[in-house]
């Protein structure tokens, strides 16, 4: 196991080799104590329920050596690059460069995304991955309304994803309703739950809001697990109908799309259709969000994030403003959930854990709160990166967690932290992330 431990003595920059060795030695000593029991002694329950153990001193030794070596490398790098503070302050030139890049990056990315099914038609794995990434892009954009724009910390966003998924799954399996009827219903139901959650939490601020949204997410999940008659409990809902091409099924039956068009049936058709479906949904989310930002409601969301008291003094009803933010974000989550259900054909409570909420929140924060392009890039990086480490299996979440820590240390304000004004007289200047507040709720 490779543990990359950032140097523990970040404050002091050692000047010479003895100091360097001292720091590394200190870090190695800490590592030795930390790993001694947790790694050095492996416990396991035997077949008779009796606990046994065996020692793994070799592993501990190599870990400690890795920390020692890693500390030296990091200290040297630090002396080489200069103080760590410098890289956190992104110079204005770089920022304006990024916004320039952003102007062309977004259309380029969009064109590339549109062409993905053409380029990778034969590569099912890439198409599936692209669908997954787009799902998270959509979730990120949805949560961005709540967290990035309105500045309300929501740790239970997955609840709305679940509400959307189960709405579609249950309506489709019980009543045989089509995807296209259920999709708006899933969004409406999720928005309804968003308002329901919004009401009690309106008065709460900051971390109280965070824990209540988290609790709400857990309540939804636990109810899904336990309300077995309705939801199937831990077994989930299976054989959820696949979406049709506006009424025409995408299968190899006689009235399927392939047969009607007179082309040979291929299962890839459905994948491609799903790809464009989620792309359309994500783009809808994006379009609506961009529009909303330029409308009074969107400005009120951002104003709420900047200063709630001032909002009230200007006659803005903060209650409805917060509720609409919750409802809008939840609605997009509901759409994404319905898509998830139809794509998987099977859903269970396992897909809606806190880890999902944390992942989506990480995408929003890493993207740079409020930045649509940033969120898309972050989703690509996180989900793509996560897939890259698939071969690591159980180490994957470990690496993922470390990446989260390191990324936050590297860029606390995310990839694109600056804010674009929603209206301008002469020229829109990007606003530095140092000025943009992140809300108190």
């Amino acid at each position: 196991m490779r543990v990359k431990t950032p140097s523990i003595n970040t404050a002091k920059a050692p000047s010479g080799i003895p100091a360097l060795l001292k720091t590394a030695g200190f870090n190695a000593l800490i590592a030795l104590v930390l790993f001694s029991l947790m790694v050095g002694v492996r416990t396991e329950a035997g077949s008779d329920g009796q606990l046994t153990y065996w020692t793994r001193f070799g592993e501990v030794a190599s870990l400690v050596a890795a920390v020692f070596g890693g500390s030296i490398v990091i200290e040297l790098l630090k002396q080489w690059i200069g103080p760590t503070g410098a890289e956190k302050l992104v110079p204005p030139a770089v920022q304006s460069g990024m916004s320039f890049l952003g102007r062309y990056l977004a259309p380029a990315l969009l064109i590339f995304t549109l062409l993905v099914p053409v380029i990778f038609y034969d590569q099912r794995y890439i198409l599936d991955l692209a669908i997954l990434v787009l799902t998270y892009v959509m979730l990120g954009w949805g949560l961005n309304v709540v967290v990035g724009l309105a500045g309300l910390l929501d740790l239970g966003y997955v609840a709305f994803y679940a509400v959307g998924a189960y709405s579609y799954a249950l309506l489709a399996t019980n009543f045989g309703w089509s995807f296209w009827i259920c999709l708006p219903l899933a969004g409406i139901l999720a928005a309804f739950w968003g308002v329901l959650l919004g009401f009690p939490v309106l008065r709460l601020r900051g971390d109280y809001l965070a824990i209540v949204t988290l609790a709400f997410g857990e309540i939804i999940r636990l109810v899904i697990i336990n309300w077995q008659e309705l939801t199937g409990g831990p077994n989930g809902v299976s054989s959820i109908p696949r979406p049709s091409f506006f009424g025409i099924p995408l299968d190899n039956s006689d009235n399927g799309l392939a047969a009607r068009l007179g082309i040979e049936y291929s299962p890839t058709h459905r994948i491609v259709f799903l790809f464009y479906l989620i792309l359309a949904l994500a783009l809808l989310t994006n379009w609506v969000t961009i529009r909303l930002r330029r409308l009074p409601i969107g400005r009120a969301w951002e104003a709420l994030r900047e200063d709630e008291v001032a909002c009230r003094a200007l006659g803005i009803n903060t209650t409805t403003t917060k509720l609409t933010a919750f409802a809008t974000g939840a609605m997009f989550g509901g759409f994404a959930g319905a898509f998830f259900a139809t794509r998987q054909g099977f859903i269970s409570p396992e897909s809606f854990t806190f880890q999902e909420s944390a992942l989506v929140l990480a995408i929003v924060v890493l993207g740079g709160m409020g930045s649509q392009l940033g969120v898309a890039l972050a989703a690509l990086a996180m989900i793509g990166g996560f897939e890259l480490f698939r071969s690591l299996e159980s180490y994957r979440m470990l690496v993922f967690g470390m990446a989260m820590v390191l990324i936050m240390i590297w860029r606390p304000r995310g990839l694109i932290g600056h804010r674009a004004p929603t209206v301008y007289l002469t020229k829109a200047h990007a606003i530095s992330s140092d000025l943009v507040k992140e809300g108190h709720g």
Partner: protein
Amino acid sequence: MDYFAQQLINGLVLGSIYGLIAIGYTMVYGIVGMINFAHGDVFMIGGFIALITFLLLVSTGLTAVPVILLIVILVSMAITALYGWTIERIAYRPLRHSFRLAPMLSAIGMSFVLTNYSQVAQGARVKPVPPVITGGYTLHESADGFVIQLSNIQIVVVITTIVLLAIFTWLVSRTRLGRDMRACEQDQTMAALLGVNVDRTISMTFVIGAALAAVAGLMYLLYYGLVDFFMGFVAGIKAFTAAVLGGIGSLPGAMLGGLAIGLIETFWSAYFSVEYKDVAAFSILIVVLIFMPTGLLGRPEVEKV
């Protein structure tokens, strides 16, 4: 009535464990103003270290239970405290004056790291331990044969909690460190100007919080007889709920909230349904916060305009 009394005992014991973890959350929140999401996992690590120390001691042939327990408690507190210290150093200190969400995300990342670290290091399977402290007292036996039991382990849990709380209260209210902690809580810049070593004080907060979590981990191990890599998440959320319920930042509030959550959970399981016990705990949290937006003992937030 007897059934009620029995559940009351069970609830108080469970609540003591939650309370010990909740103190860690509330202390860190009070000083650094962040939710230490990894704290539940620190509790889990504490449980594992206690288990391993216990195994090693037993295999040396030591049989005196009090001696074993004393060594286990000291070793697990020390090593877990070091985990707390290291986590703060790596994941939180670089983000101390950063934006509010960055340390939170960093903490969530750290929580993933710890959960999966212990899964990788110790395997995914549940680790059972045989009962270490056995026996107990029958407090009351009713006519229909229902007995109220007070087991020795329950006594140990409650007494340990009370002793730790006493030490801890003394630490915060009477010592130099406690004074520094309270000063940092009020105003870090001013505290630093007055010669308080803020970095060290914050480190110590994490160390103490982790040590208490380690004791909670040991108690959990003894009481339930098992540990697994995922237990930190649920216990952590419950304890955090307890801290918020009591009023985050308030130490007596954390203990009170812990007891409340323990009791709610136990009574709900006993009288309604086991499946919905967590739903009940979370729902009551939401209801309490609607009427008392800063928890039971939290200071009301005065809005300065």
